[in-house]
Structure formats: structure tokens, C-alpha cells
């Protein structure tokens, strides 16, 4: 599981990634949002250091850029987990109990909307209608649609992803000849908030 997460980039990496992306958009009008999108695609999130660097390179103030990043729910400034859970709170999902489902996810993951679990396996987001209102309440995990999710189903849904991640990391540990102890330790740690709140 240690290998499941993307490493948090250091400042030098951020600067060089941002510079390459800004250079690729040089001379284009209205390039701010495409640049920020590319940064999120490359790094998994838009770190504050990256926003500062974009500002320096494109002569836009930090506060203005932060305004753009915080306006669009697409952008996130915290590192993303391996899986992004999006709970729909569109009208249909909302009236069918989407909010309770969201609460259950917050409890089970031990995080609030917009954050990432400590093991960096899950990030939790809110969605505003995925166009599947007939299946409400809907939860999207990465590109996978989960329909008619109710609070009691949440634990099982998450465990499936956890198990897959565990399997992957033990396979990798076996491949590299060690590390099973640390994988076990991490899994235990991730369970803690879940047990505490259940």
C-alpha cells in the first residue's frame, strides 16, 4: 500500500513541472485554467507552491489564482488519494438520502469533504449531478458508478477498494522481497478512525 500513493512532490519538482507547463502555453490568451488543469493532471493536485510559481511566471497575483482554484470544485489544493470518492448531492440524490450517505463516508473515512485520508487511499468530494438521477443516490469512485448507495453499504464499498490495494501492495512487497510488515501497519492505521466512529 505504501506504493499505492503518489509521492508528494518537492518544491524543485513543482517548479520544474509548472515551468514546463507554463512554457507549453506561452503566448496563449486565457491559458490560466488550462495551465492549472495540466498541473492537477501532472501532480494530482494543485499545491500552493505551484500557484505561487504560476503567478510569478504569468504575472497574476497569488490571491487571484487562489480565487480561480477555489472557485472550481474540480481543483484541489491538497494531495489526492489514490481513489476519489464523489458523493452526488444533486437534487435527486439529495432527496433520496445523498446527504446521509455523505455523512457515512465522512465517518468511515474519518475525513471531511475536500480532504484525503492519511494513508492517501481515498479523497472525498461532493458531486453536483452525474446525470444518473434514476439510480440515485449515486456515488462515483474514480470512473466507477455505484448506484442506490445507502449508508449501510458504504463500509463494504470502501473495503473492496482497500482489499484491492492491499492485494496489490503485498504482491509488490513479495516482488521486491520485503515490506509486508509496514503494509500491515499502515492498513491497521487506516482502520482506526473507522472503528472509533462506528
Amino acid at each position: 500500500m505504501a506504493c499505492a500513493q503518489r509521492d508528494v512532490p518537492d518544491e524543485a519538482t513543482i517548479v520544474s513541472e509548472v515551468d514546463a507547463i507554463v512554457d507549453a502555453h506561452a503566448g496563449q490568451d486565457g491559458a490560466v485554467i488550462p495551465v492549472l488543469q495540466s498541473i492537477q493532471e501532472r501532480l494530482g493536485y494543485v499545491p500552493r507552491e505551484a500557484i505561487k510559481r504560476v503567478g510569478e511566471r504569468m504575472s497574476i497575483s497569488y490571491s487571484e489564482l487562489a480565487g480561480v482554484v477555489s472557485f472550481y470544485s474540480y481543483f484541489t489544493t491538497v494531495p489526492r488519494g489514490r481513489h476519489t470518492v464523489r458523493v452526488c448531492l444533486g437534487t435527486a440524490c439529495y432527496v433520496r438520502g445523498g446527504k446521509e450517505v455523505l455523512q457515512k463516508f465522512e465517518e468511515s473515512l474519518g475525513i471531511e469533504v475536500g480532504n484525503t485520508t492519511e494513508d492517501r487511499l481515498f479523497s472525498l468530494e461532493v458531486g453536483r449531478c452525474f446525470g444518473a438521477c434514476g439510480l440515485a443516490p449515486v456515488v462515483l469512485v474514480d470512473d466507477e458508478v455505484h448506484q442506490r448507495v445507502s449508508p449501510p453499504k458504504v463500509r463494504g464499498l470502501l473495503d473492496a477498494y482497500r482489499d484491492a490495494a492491499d492485494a496489490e501492495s503485498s504482491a509488490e512487497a513479495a516482488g521486491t522481497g520485503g515490506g509486508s510488515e509496514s503494509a500491515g501497519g499502515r492498513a491497521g492505521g487506516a482502520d482506526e478512525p473507522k472503528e472509533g466512529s462506528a
Partner: protein
Amino acid sequence: MVDIRINDRPMKVSSDTTILEAARQAGITIPTLCHMEQRPPLGACRVCVVEVKHAPRLMAACATPVAEGMEIFTNTKRVRDGRRSVLELLLSEHNGDCRICVRSDDCELRKIAANLDITKVRYEGELPPARYDDSTPALRRDTEKCIKCRRCITMCTDVQGVGALAPQKRGYGTEIGPAFSLDLGDVACVQCGQCAAACPVGAIIETSHVEDVWHALEDPEKHVVVQTAPAIRAALGECFGYPPGTRVTGKMVAALRGMGFDAVFDTNFAADLTILEEGHELLERLKHALVPKETVGAAAGASQEGAAGGSAQGHGAGGGFNPRGGGGPGGNGSPTGGGDGHGGGSSERDGHGGHNGDGGHGPGPLPLITSCSPGWIKHAELFFPDLLPNLSTCKSPQQMFGALAKTYYAQNAEVDPANMVVVSAMPCTAKKFEAARPEMRSSGYQDVDYVITTRELGRMITSSGLSFDELEDDTTDSPLGQSSGAADIFANTGGVMEAALRTVWEVVTGSELPGENLHFQPAQGLTGVKEAEATIAGTKPEFSFLEGVTVRIAVAHGLGNASKLLSEVRRDPSRYHFIEIMACPGGCIGGGGQPRPTTDEVREARIRGIYAEDEGKPLRKSHENPDVAKLYSDYLERPLGPRSHELLHTHYERREV
């Protein structure tokens, strides 16, 4: 042109007019909380709604252009009800207590609510997160009072190009402020206070020094002196109902004396002094660029000699002066001498070697850029660090005054500087920041202790119980009180340039600055960036290196304009010799600490008032100020001399925030 009707009255207006502008032309004021003159419509506050015949909804007057045959109604029941709803919604989010709000007298939200007869708010809801931001020396933010009209952003981002404030998040969660709910002190803010001048409510205000000043005045141990900036004498009257531009210098002095200051001085005195220091700095830099290196040492001495006493005007044939607005580059003579220290983007102050044996300070590169405006200084430190060597090393008049008050004046008056308190009354919020800069302690103490804005001074006079109307004109004290008209015009954009030219021209040629009534028209007025050039002729022998040289100058006011000009300087470092920059639109008369509102009409009225003050003075040129001459003969010796460097000059540093 299109034909429209407003409230059944026919009128013809240009087709690119908005309803708001058309109504103003018809003498009808439509209330608005977000719109600012000469800026694109925002449509953020919705207070300006009007009824347009056949339109299904009420329309925002600021954002709706007129159309042929349009019939507009600005005061129907539907309009009033609509505005009332909008106001009540704004009020429901505005968590301000008018009883203890500094803006209760001039709060635009409260005024509009009162005009609409709103006596209760029908909506109750969640209030915005409350955060009080006192992270900077000059400004205070109170997010509970913010109504999200975005005027502060218009000023900070669109006009000034600073961008410390921006809308964050979206929808109900929208916050107006620095990135990620940080404090102002954590982002690049220049402290110019244009946000505080534009805010319709009390969400951004200046840090008050009022109580500190009262405290000092009451302390019998303290010797409290005050200096007043040039720009406040044509604006302070607005706090007492006088029209903008009314000159109240004499009443202001009387009021300060009535409040109990031990001595009432004038920043103008220090402005005259600034001209002598900065004028000679300009001549040194010109000489350094124009005269072959081996002769610089000898020539520099000569330039300083010509200055100190401030010779009276001569009557030579000062011909050849030919001010021309909008002069482009590439005139005759290219006097900056190319790659000598400037243009390389070097931020090393002494990167160009050449010392003239004067306290170790070699002349810096051209163009020389003025340094009176502390908002501009911080802007340069943040955004143009490569041009810091171009900034005049002269402190601003406020800080020159402070340093002299606690040394020269303290000695004369036999006051222990430890017991002296120097108060400044300024049109500016950034002056609070400047006074607190750690390097501004040349006297061994903080040179300027407290800075109050024009608005704070107005409140203090009122609370002192003095009837401003009835005060008899009084005059400032010696030795830091007398000034020439050249000092007054520091208040206006182009004024420092004009004041410097009045002195430098005369020092160099021995004759008066040509131009009607000593004015330098191309530098005046509200055009954002002004350029001019003048060819010097008839120089005195010691300034023969300037004979026939075409000196190119530029003036910018408002930091957005300044940034445009400086980008040009970066591109072509030899384009100008001398540049004046003021952080605020219109110069100090439009400062962030001036009475509200400040519109272009108000700016123009204050500018006229200041020129009238200048023209009314018996002395019009800084070098004619006898108290300044005395200061040099008794204490400083000569401009740019060692003691000047110690007390009157400073240095700058690159900053991140």
C-alpha cells in the same frame, strides 16, 4: 445617439451609454454599492435596479446599455421594492454594529437603507465567517462587515495591479480577501489603502493611531510635535462639509494647536528639503552617466557646491526650454551612456562601482525614480526589485521630517528626543507602514511615532470639541514649518517632478524654469502616464555637460500605470532620465487616507486647490526656502553630504510579502 425616456422625460444619449450613466446625465442618481466610475460594470450588488418598459425583470442600471426607444423608470414602487429586497439581503449578511462602527457617519450601505426607509430586515440567515485581520501596520479587515461588492478588488487588482485581494471560493461561501483566507500580511500588499478608500462599509479601514496620539498629548512628560502633509490641506475641509479642494491650511494649524500639540510643523518643509537632496542626486546621476569616468570625481564636487546656499534666481537668457507632452524616445543626445550600471537587471545597489568619495555612496543609475510614496516603494520592493537601484535614496518628506525633528529640532529646542513624540497627519495609509520600517530610526528612536490619516485627523478635531468653522487662521512654527509653493504641489501627480524641475533648472542654468507661472504643464493632470522632454540650454560652466542635452521625463500615478511605465523602462532603460511615481491615482490628493468619496471630480478639485496654494505663496521654489538654507548652513552642511546621508537617505530591499 439614441432617443430614450427616463421617468417620462425624453433625452438623447450616445448609444454606448449605460442606463446608470444616462440617468446621471439627466440629473438622477441611482444608488449603487459596487460601481466605480470609469471601470467596467460589475453588476455585483444589484442595488441599481431600474424598471425598463417591456422588460420582464428589473434591470441593473450599471450593466444595461441604453437602446433606441428605451423607457426607463428609476423610482416606481416595483423599483423601490426591488432595491429594498436587495438591501435587506445585503444587510442580513452584514454583521456590523452601527453603534460602534467607524463608518457610521459615511457608510454607504446604511445611507441607502435609510433612503429606502428600511426599518427592519425580513431575512435572517447564516452570517459570513468572522475574521479580524490586523496583520499589517496600516490596514484592518473585518470580514463580518464585508458585503462582497468587490470595489476593493477593483482598486487593488484592476487599478493598482497589486492583486492582494480577490474573490475566493464561490456562491454563499464567497470571501473577499487574500488567497486561501490568509491575512493581508501573508500576501503581497503595498498598504496603499485604496481598498479602504473605496469600501462602502467598514470592512477595510486604516489602523487607528487616534488613541495613541491623545495619550501622548495628555502626557506632561512628552513633547509632541505634528507635521501635516501637503495633500491634506485641500481635503481636510471635506470632513467638515467644505467642498473638495477648499484650502483650510490656516484652520488646520489652529486646530492642531488647539488640540495641544507643542509645536505645529509642516511636512512641506521636508518636501523642500527633499527637492534639494533629490535634485542633486539627479544631477549626480546625470553627471555620472554623461561625463567620462576619470573626470567624475572632480565634477561631482562642483555640482554640490552650486547648490547648498540656494542661489536666488538669475535672469539669463534661459532659452531652449521646450516642454512637449508625449515626447517619444530617440530625441537628440542619448545621454544615459548605455551600459553603465543600469539595464542589466542587477539588484546590487553598488553594482556600478563609481564612487565619488562621498560617504561611500556612488551615484546610482538612470532613470532616477522618485521615492516619496511608501506604497510605491513597497510595490517596487515586491514587483520591481531589479529597479531598486534606480530609486532615489532620499527618504520621503515624512521620514526626513521625523529624523530632523528628533535631532536638529530636539537640539535647538533642548528637548530629549526620548521624550519627543512625532505625529504625522497624512493622506496616506502606507505612511503608517513606512513609519514602522525598521530602518526609519536614524535619530536612535522611531523617527515618526504615529501617523494619522486625514480622516482620523477630522475625527480628532471633531472630538476635541473645536468648531472648525470658527477657527482663526494660524501659521506653522519655526524651524520646520516654512515652505515654498513647490512643496505644496508634492500633493498632486506631477508635482514632485515640477518642483524638482523648478530647482534643478535654476541651479543648472541660473535662470527660472520657463513655463507659465513656473508650472510644468506636461506633468500635470490625470492622464495615467505622462511623458515630456526638454532640451537644456544656457548652462552654467560647471554644468556644461548638460548643454544641449534633451532630458526625458515621465510621470505615473496609480500603481497599474506605474507598472506599465516600468515595464517600458525594463525594455528600454535609456528611455527616460527622471521618473515620478505616486502609488495613488491623482497622487497624494487621492491617497488611501483621504475623506470619502474620492472621484475624479474630487481629485481635480483638490488638485486645483493645491495649485492655488502654491501660487499664493511668496516663495515658489524649494531652494528659496530660507529655513532649509539655514538647516544646511547650521547642521547638514550640503545636499548629499555625510549628515544628509545619515539622516535623510535610506535603502530598499527585495521582498516576498
